[in-house]
């Protein structure tokens, strides 16, 4: 299950999409998200589909890999669909006892499901093509203007970097503790949900203790390397807009413009 989640994972590859500036990609993702919810016609979704398929092709990430990321949220999509189908008032086209299906409901349910699918594909494309470091760097730079009103942009980015850095370490540790407990007869896999949840306590306690220990060590190591916050700090890797980003902006404008055009005509 955990391995199926592609949102938030990075897929290293060499493509134009990978090379784009993370700041541009984050902004573009927002515009894309707004566009999915603004579109209301089949033709409009045709344009969105063309656009996203084009991006996936450009990113050189196998479509299968991206679709795999939809699996864990399939339940939510189905749920959203069903709720919309059954509970939207309107012209009834099918009725069985208390269950009523309206044409408006079908229409809305279908669009809701499509929107969620496009949303997930779009956001996972962002994280799949942007390394965690670039992503946090991009977020930091985009949040910089808000520093004036007291938003700790650098600290937020540093926290994200460190948590990303420690995810594999802590996963490894969890595995180790689990095996150590299992070797002494702990059972994580059978019994009722309550029992299984109780079984997690001997796993979580040592994990938390070691996580705090690690945090303490890391803080000391960072201080020993003269870390004192984001002020007066230089960076090895600096984000730069390139020609690719310019071309990307044109593609994005073209996409938004065509959505508007179709809306006018229809």
């Amino acid at each position: 299950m955990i391995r199926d989640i592609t949102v938030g994972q990075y897929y290293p590859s060499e493509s134009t999409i990978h090379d784009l500036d993370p700041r541009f990609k984050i902004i573009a993702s927002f515009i894309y998200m707004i566009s999915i919810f603004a579109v209301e016609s089949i033709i409009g979704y045709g344009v969105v589909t063309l656009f996203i398929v084009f991006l996936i092709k450009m990113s050189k990430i196998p479509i299968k890999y991206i679709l795999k990321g939809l699996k864990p949220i399939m339940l939510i999509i189905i749920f959203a669909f069903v709720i919309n189908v059954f509970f939207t008032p309107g012209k009834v086209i099918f009725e069985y006892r208390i269950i009523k299906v309206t044409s408006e409901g079908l229409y809305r349910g279908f669009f809701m499901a499509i929107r969620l699918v496009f949303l997930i594909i779009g956001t996972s494309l962002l994280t799949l093509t942007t390394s965690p470091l670039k992503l946090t760097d991009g977020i930091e730079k985009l949040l910089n203007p808000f520093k004036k009103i007291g938003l700790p942009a650098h600290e937020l980015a540093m926290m994200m970097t460190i948590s990303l850095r420690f995810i594999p370490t802590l996963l490894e540790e969890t595995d180790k503790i689990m095996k150590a407990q299992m070797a002494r007869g702990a059972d994580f896999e059978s019994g009722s949900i309550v029992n299984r949840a109780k079984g997690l306590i001997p796993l979580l306690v040592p994990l938390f203790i070691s996580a705090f220990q690690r945090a303490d060590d890391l803080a000391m190591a960072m201080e020993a390397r003269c870390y004192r916050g984001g002020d007066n700090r230089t960076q090895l890797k600096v984000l730069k807009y390139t020609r690719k980003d310019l071309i990307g902006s044109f593609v994005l404008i073209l996409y938004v413009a065509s959505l508007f055009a179709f809306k006018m005509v229809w």
Partner: protein
Amino acid sequence: MIKTDKLNFEYDDGSFKLENIDINIDDGEFVVIIGHNGSGKSTLAKLFNGIYLPNSGKIYVNKMDTSDEELIWEIRKSAGMIFQNPDNQIVATIVEDDVAFGPENLAIERSEIRNRVDKSLKTVGMFDYINKPTTSLSGGQKQRVAIAGILAMQPKCIILDEPTAMLDPVGRKDVMRTIHKLNKEEKITIVHITHFMNEAVDADRIIVMDQGKKIMEGTPKEIFSRVKDVRNLGLDVPQVTLLAHMLKDEGINIDDDIIKIDEMVEKLCQLK
């Protein structure tokens, strides 16, 4: 390079203290501080770096007083520190980003950071891994990356707090080779804290700690030839030294200050 003057230190909860420590470490020296668990050797390292401050007495790093708050960053810049757990001192996900962390904090210019990162990674022999994720490295490799990270800050002195304790024998050898190289080629003062005796054999000087006190100090030969004293402290002496000692006890005419295997071979061959 590092000088302590009647240093006293006690933890807030009173669990442990260091008493009257006088240590003087010269520029370019390779000093090993040895002692078993709870002897105060790691506490001493953290005092050298200004992480802890002494209750009384003074510590001077490169002639700067560690209790002077304004000098703390200068002190940490000139005396870099490597910790025991390789996982808990790596900040970034990619090797070169981690090495760049120190110089970035010192607000060094970008092109210069690039030079320093490349140079330090070459020095520790990790240049081939420059773009690898830090989690894919072995313990010894992580520790060498950590050393490169300190090196990129161009310190005069590196303090290593049991850097080999969590490594396998291969990683341990690589790390030891690296720090000896830094001492010889880059003329960096090394303070190496360990409880492995064989890592102390090549040092210029050994300081033995026990229960918060400095109890012995001298060249490896001077220390290890006092086999009984060392063993009474719960510490080991190198195997060859022990062998030489036992041979001597059996009435064989051999020096009992042998600490290296080659030396032993030579001395044994000279016997009639």
